[in-house]
């Protein structure tokens, strides 16, 4: 069984700090085969190109270990479109948004040009959720319904206070996936039961330890096929569908 962590932070930001050595060491210790690397804080908001270049470098050095999801702040307009295009041309595997930091509501049309880039390159888009008022699960559902041929990942799947909105978000939104980090065990087990093919393990390390987040998911009472999907198969399929498998 391949274990893939769909949310690992790379970079030295104002608050989050994690370098490649720490990520590799954690992966070895925790039995994680691959990670999706995401930029942190100022690299998500302002220094998008520098953050993306860091991801490209990591993915080039460790092509069998890392996927990279690029940041582009939609307020940069055409520059953001070029940033994301350049990142995908350089081989990055998806787009990464934290709209509460970047300053837009997920369902606002300001992000549409960037999702168009995702569609053009068949790449998924990851959105942090559960920070009101700009990063809510139902906002993501509206965006996902607007772009039915792009796959979206709901970061933290609403943890904690918006887990009530998971079902309404998933309803008639088959292109929406749920990432588990920071959630109660109870919620993780419920979504694995209800959406076994669309739940993706993620840790948000180092904000929460990878071992701890992995342990919560591994305790789920689900069959081996389902767990294989949650721990790696589902994100792998998503990446393959996005024509972004491997490096």
């Amino acid at each position, binding site marked *: 069984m391949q274990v893939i962590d769909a949310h690992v*932070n790379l970079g*030295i930001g104002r*608050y*989050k*700090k*994690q*370098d490649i*050595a*720490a*990520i590799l*060491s*954690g992966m070895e210790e925790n039995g994680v085969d691959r990670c999706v690397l995401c930029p942190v804080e100022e690299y998500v908001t302002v220094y998008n190109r520098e953050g993306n270049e860091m991801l490209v470098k990591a993915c080039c050095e460790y092509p069998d270990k890392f996927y990279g999801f690029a940041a582009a702040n939609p307020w940069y307009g055409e520059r953001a479109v070029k940033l994301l295009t350049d990142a995908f041309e350089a081989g990055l595997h998806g787009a990464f948004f934290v709209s*509460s930091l970047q300053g837009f509501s997920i369902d606002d049309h300001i992000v549409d040009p960037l999702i168009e880039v995702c569609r053009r390159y068949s790449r998924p888009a990851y959105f942090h959720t*559960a*920070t*009101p*008022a700009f990063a809510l699960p139902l906002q993501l559902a509206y965006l996902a319904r607007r772009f039915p041929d792009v796959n979206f990942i709901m970061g*933290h799947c609403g*943890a*904690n*206070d918006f*887990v*009530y909105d998971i079902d309404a978000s998933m309803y008639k939104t088959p292109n929406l996936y749920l990432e588990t980090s*920071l959630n*109660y*065990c*109870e*919620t993780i*087990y419920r979504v694995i039961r209800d959406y076994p093919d669309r739940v993706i393990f993620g840790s*948000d*390390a*180092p*904000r*929460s*330890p*990878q*071992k*701890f987040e992995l*342990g*919560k998911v591994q*305790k789920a009472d689900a069959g081996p096929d389902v767990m294989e999907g949650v721990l790696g198969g589902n994100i792998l399929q998503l990446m393959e569908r996005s024509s972004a498998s491997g490096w």
Partner: protein
Amino acid sequence: MCVGHQPSAGDMKGGGQVNGMIIDTHAHTQDGIGMLSNYVPVGRMVEIMDEYGVKEAWVSPATAMQRDFIESNRRQYEDIRAYPGRFINFYTANPNYPELVENDIRRSIEDRGFKGIKMHPWETGFPIDVPASRRIVELAVEYDVPVLYHDGTPPWSETLQVAAMADYYPEAKIIIGHSGLFDAYRSAIRACNTHDNIWLQICGPCVGDAAEIIRQARKDRLLFGSDFATSETANLMDERLKVLEMACPDEKLRRQILCENPRELISQS
């Protein structure tokens, strides 16, 4: 350089070396709908507390957050009487019924020995800064008992809205029940460090955020809470104690959070 060391979760039952002295300052009896739908009989709750070395839990009835608050608080009082020394009664208040709730708070504190008041503005459905809600805090001041608020959930349970009660009522002991959760924990730290009457519960923030709270907030104002009964309860107790252990490797400080600070707070009441 290896930045971003991840603390080990280990295989311990939560709490590590301080087992047997743990005071869980944020727990619930009974059930409701939604997140509160995990009903655990008090006897089972005691078994789980024993399993994790939790000596005492400060409990408020979950049902009362949503309905039947008078009956619900009375029932908690009856249910936990069979376990002397294991529980502290917190009264779950519903300010939407001002006269009823005031009379029942008085009865519960004077006749039944309740030692604190819990408010959950989000679940119960009221803004924090309205006269009926502030009246509850005035009662807490009158009886010198702490007020525990749910927080971290805008628009009606925003962390600094809770902290504002500490401004209005410097004599009140205000407990911020989730230290801001994922998005407002830095506000919770600032509020705690600028008030002498605010306590923060490590009950909800993830490991990294909890570590920051513990590093930066007043050490004598930190408490541990499991939020028992808002999720599958043994898992939740395990999870929350592990979060604290990883966020606070200093055993002496952990003991202060798990035991000494809550003892000090409740002994004043």
